[in-house]
């Protein structure tokens, strides 16, 4: 059926009415849950439902969703509209779930157990990980089937598009986005309204609109989750953007490793085309727009805007020095707007609910919400979307459940590989684009890596520099040669061969990188080093001066010892991979320093604080 401006509201109304009586059993079949046999669960659920032979009086639908953003709890099964929330579901649980569904008594053992109270929570509304979130960009994530366009339409999908095409001029759309204060979610935090306005005014045709779904930051997966779970939301944002700037062709640049996102986007595009929401004369108006999918070039730097455009053009994905903006001369040297997935998916929301509604949430300089991918030493690893201005402490402790195993928080790395590490003292920072930059880090695309006292910050800096060395395109001298030297110095320090002059050389390298590099990768590559030097300088000094790595990570700079708190439980001896711990049961154990490889397994395993880290013998 072709939708038009005249019939879309009626169609939605009908869907809403139909779906009101419906109960949906939704199995997460996102990438993470698939890896844990989510598809097996979906199949088993189907069989169990069939076997249960539910009569006509219960209207139930079994569907699959995209990634909810909490894959470590997967496979996840939810039952809507109540929001019953099952975690770690296996195919053999299907019968019980259906039985619970029929009886109204949910399966206790599959419910999420609260970290502190140890209570079971029936619905996700009660789970702190979700209840503390404000999911705007992820409004449909996990709530709909990504391959059913009707699900999307029923949840106000394409309503904003209809509103725009029915009664707004392109300039009004740009104004609305500008008024909302939407800033790009992909890294730079550039004002989206301003970008759109320049492209709208630029002469040259055709104009292009590109969605950046390259998501190269290690550990980040919000764009994947959004594309997989709510592809229509991305399309709608792009179509509205195209209308606003006068683009006729769009591209979605999807990272090579995201086949499921591509599949869902392709299906969504086909369905949208079929229903007159994409292609010629959208919704019967005289506006036409097409979208193609471009697969990523496989390199981190391909996510950088100019490299990405070169890659779509079929050239080597290297950044191009640009003092002319893409809004004037972008893809194929035509006016182009490039925005991130999360940026685009905010657009329908802004147009539907109004700029004021969007701008009412957030801080003075950063409006709306932001999705973070929180990983590392926290109890809940996953996607967390909160209003701009939420503090790091709330994010890490309230939503993500804090640092596990009673260890101490040490640092949080924000902003992806070229972001910075912030210490405990910065935890009350109200997170937005500007506060993070002022603190020496950045928002980036929203990666948060939490570290505890078992992380060595020198080693962390080295890790990120190594990542950047591998990912630098190698075009410009400061980044290619500077990062190479930086890595050599940091490696030396972690190997116990650091010299006092090294810190001077590092400072110098940081300056050359910042001031000399061509693109933002090199310009920001100093951040992990600068921020760790700023907040954890003493650790560098300890490495160099005292030959000591307090975290017990740099093997040549530490040794593990057992003190008198030892109860002789022998747990350490069991976990030691080189079996160098000996001792009688219930007696003090000893580590043989010779074979010890300083892996720290014993330290992590000991429940009595009996293992100590000292400098190397």
């Amino acid at each position, binding site marked *: 059926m072709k939708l038009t401006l005249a019939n879309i509201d009626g169609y939605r109304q009908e869907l809403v009415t139909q779906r009101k009586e419906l109960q949906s059993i939704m199995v997460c079949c996102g990438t993470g849950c698939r890896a844990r046999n989510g598809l097996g669960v979906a199949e088993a659920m189907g069989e169990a439902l069939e076997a249960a032979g539910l009569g006509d009086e219960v209207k139930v639908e079994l569907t699959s969703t995209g990634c909810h953003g909490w894959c470590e709890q997967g496979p996840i099964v939810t039952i809507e509209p109540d929001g019953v929330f099952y975690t770690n579901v296996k195919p053999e649980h299907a019968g019980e779930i259906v039985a619970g569904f029929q009886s109204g008594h949910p399966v206790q053992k599959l419910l999420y157990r609260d970290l502190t109270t140890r209570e079971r929570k029936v619905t996700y509304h009660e789970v702190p990980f979700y209840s503390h979130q404000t999911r705007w960009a992820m409004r449909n994530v996990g709530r709909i089937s990504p391959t059913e366009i009707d699900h999307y339409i029923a949840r106000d999908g394409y309503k904003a598009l209809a509103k725009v095409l029915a009664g707004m001029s392109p300039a009004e759309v740009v104004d609305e986005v500008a008024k909302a204060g939407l800033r790009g979610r992909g890294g730079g935090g550039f004002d989206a309204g301003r970008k759109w306005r320049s492209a709208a005014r630029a002469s040259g045709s055709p104009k292009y609109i590109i969605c950046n779904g390259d998501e190269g930051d290690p550990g980040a997966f919000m764009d994947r989750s959004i594309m997989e779970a709510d592809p229509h939301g991305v399309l709608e944002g792009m179509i509205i953007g195209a209308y606003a700037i006068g683009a006729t062709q769009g591209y979605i640049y999807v990272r090579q490793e995201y086949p499921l996102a591509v599949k869902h986007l392709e299906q969504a595009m086909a369905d949208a085309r079929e229903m007159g929401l994409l292609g010629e004369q959208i919704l019967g108006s005289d506006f036409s727009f097409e979208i193609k999918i471009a697969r990523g070039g496989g*390199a981190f*730097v391909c996510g950088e805007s100019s490299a990405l455009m070169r890659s779509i053009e079929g050239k*080597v994905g290297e950044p*191009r*020095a640009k*003092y*002319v903006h893409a809004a004037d001369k972008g893809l194929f040297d035509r006016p182009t707007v490039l925005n991130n997935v999360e940026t685009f998916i905010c657009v329908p929301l802004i147009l539907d609910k109004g700029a004021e509604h969007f701008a009412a949430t957030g801080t003075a300089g950063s409006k709306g919400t932001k999705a973070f991918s929180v990983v590392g030493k926290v109890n809940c690893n996953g996607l967390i979307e909160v209003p701009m201005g939420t503090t790091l402490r709330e994010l890490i402790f309230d939503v993500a459940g804090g640092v596990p195993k009673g260890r101490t928080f040490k640092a949080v790395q924000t902003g992806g590989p070229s972001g910075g590490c912030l210490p405990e003292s910065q935890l009350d920072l109200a997170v937005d684009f500007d506060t993070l930059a002022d603190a020496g880090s950045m928002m980036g695309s929203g990666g948060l890596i939490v570290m505890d006292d078992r992380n060595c910050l020198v080693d962390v800096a080295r890790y990120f520099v190594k990542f950047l*060395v*591998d*990912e*630098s*395109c*190698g*075009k*410009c*001298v*400061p980044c*290619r*040669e*500077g*990062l*190479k*030297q930086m890595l*050599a110095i940091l490696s030396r320090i972690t190997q116990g061969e650091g010299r006092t002059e090294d810190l001077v*050389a590092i400072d*110098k*390298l940081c*300056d*050359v990188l910042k*001031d*000399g*590099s*061509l693109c933002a990768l090199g310009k920001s590559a100093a951040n992990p080093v600068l921020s760790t030097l700023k907040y954890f300088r003493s650790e560098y000094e300890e490495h160099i001066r005292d030959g000591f790595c307090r975290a017990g990570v740099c093997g040549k700079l530490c040794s593990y010892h057992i003190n008198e708190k030892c109860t002789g439980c022998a747990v350490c001896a069991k976990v030691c991979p080189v079996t160098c711990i000996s001792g009688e049961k219930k007696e003090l154990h000893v580590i043989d320093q010779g074979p010890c490889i300083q892996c720290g397994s014993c330290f992590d395993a000991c429940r009595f604080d009996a293992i100590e880290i000292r400098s190397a013998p």
Partner: protein
Amino acid sequence: MSEIILNGRKVKVRKGEFLLAVARREGIEIPTLCQHDAVEPAGACRLCLVEVTRPEWEGWSKLVTSCLFPAEDGLIVSTDSAPVHKTRKGILELLMARSPNAVPVRELARQYGIEQCPYPVQHDGDNCILCDICTRVCQNLVTGAISRIDRGVGKRVATPFAEPSTDCVGCLACAKSCPTAAIPYEDEGLRRTIWGKTFEVASCAGCGAPTVTAEQAAWIEQSKGVSREDQLVCDRCKAQKTAAAYQKLAW
């Protein structure tokens, strides 16, 4: 016509003209290692950095590569301010560590007062500084036989799969436009070897002197429409033929 202030002097510029060109016209030297007039600027070596500001920036300034930065009315440019000098020096130190034997690198390092490189120097380091001139020349002007392969520290210039390339016509333009003479080739008599491919240089139909390779002649004929026969005679013999024609005319 627009006007900029270049090192304190008012200078007229054409709109969109790059700062490097303006500076050179004004006799101001800016070091460059990846700039070549025959190809579009790349911004790879970063040595041509200059500091730019505008009155309305209220004291804020930034470093930009002059080979790529368009001269806009009202721009205030310093080509050798302290930050410029410092960054160039930092870059040259990095280049000295990589390619200590490359003549222009050494010469610039000397000019910038680098006595000792602060990083471990690769004494047998490759002269290639990845300025990208050769690949831009070959890809944009000749047949595209070479390109930069791999990324990051492993980046290098090579033919596809490092095999002798079918596209290479043996014109040596890459090697001869290389600022650091980093591309090895042999060119002896009628034999020429580059990028692992050996060519026979056509000998002049008149005197036997080397002219161009048959591959290059074919490429010029096909892409530029210049007949092959004319190409395979050396300039002296061609001139002699011209002379003979004149002599005939004279009678």
